[in-house]
């Protein structure tokens, strides 16, 4: 799990995000870095569960598999991306979040994250 934490930290630093979590499809948190307010276990579980609907929506729209969900708020953003069949990445960014940088960082560090799983 040390390699995963290292990869998560590298991603969080590059994305300038507040925190990042890797959570299983069963909703259980595997690893987390950074500072995320609130109940981490709940955020991870709910975020991983919430991917099911967009996945089936993509099939209905004929748009292929789900790549990434980005939820934007007044004061930040949350990115949820499936890493493997079993694991999902949840990243929380603050008000100054640079969406382009988050997407770039994810692209850059995704392989590293997957290989650490």
């Amino acid at each position, binding site marked *: 799990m040390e390699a995963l934490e290292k990869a998560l930290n590298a991603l969080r630093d590059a994305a300038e995000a507040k925190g990042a979590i890797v959570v299983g499809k069963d909703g259980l948190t595997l690893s987390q870095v950074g500072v*995320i*307010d*609130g*109940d981490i276990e*709940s*955020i991870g579980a*709910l*975020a991983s569960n*919430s991917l099911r*609907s*967009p996945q089936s*929506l*993509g099939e*209905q*729209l*004929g*748009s*292929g*598999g*789900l*790549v*990434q*969900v*980005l*939820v*934007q*708020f*007044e*004061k*930040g953003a*949350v990115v*949820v991306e499936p890493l493997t069949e079993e694991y999902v990445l949840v990243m*929380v960014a603050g008000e100054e979040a640079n*969406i*382009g940088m988050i*997407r770039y960082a994810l692209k850059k560090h995704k392989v590293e994250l997957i290989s650490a799983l």
Partner: protein
Amino acid sequence: MSTLAEFVQESGMLKAVVARTDGTVLDAAGVRPGDREVLPRAASIALRLGKVVEQYEGMGTLSGVWIQYEEGLLLVQELGEEVFLIALAGLGASVGMVRYHVNRALPDLVRAYGEAPQEQGGQDEVAFLETGEAPGGA
């Protein structure tokens, strides 16, 4: 041409609808009758996603959701308290470009649908979606 149709034409989006959170379609552009239930469903999914995180993060209110697929990009953007724009871009769509077009059209879209959603244009297209008949009863 409705504000939504203009947005779809200028932005190069494949299709778009403006819908209320209860799923009522207020306007549609580029949408086949078969999509009329699918796209508004995206709004409820987006809302659910947003409410989940909003509850725990104190990040303010939800402003938009982007769902990227292998062959398309779906965006859900709030236009009013209970009104959302749901739009689908095709393969190769640039997130930055889509965002640019959305931001550019947002004031007009909010004016057209966000403030008085039940009385705005596009009714013919909605009727077409609901009945499967062309506008004007053809």
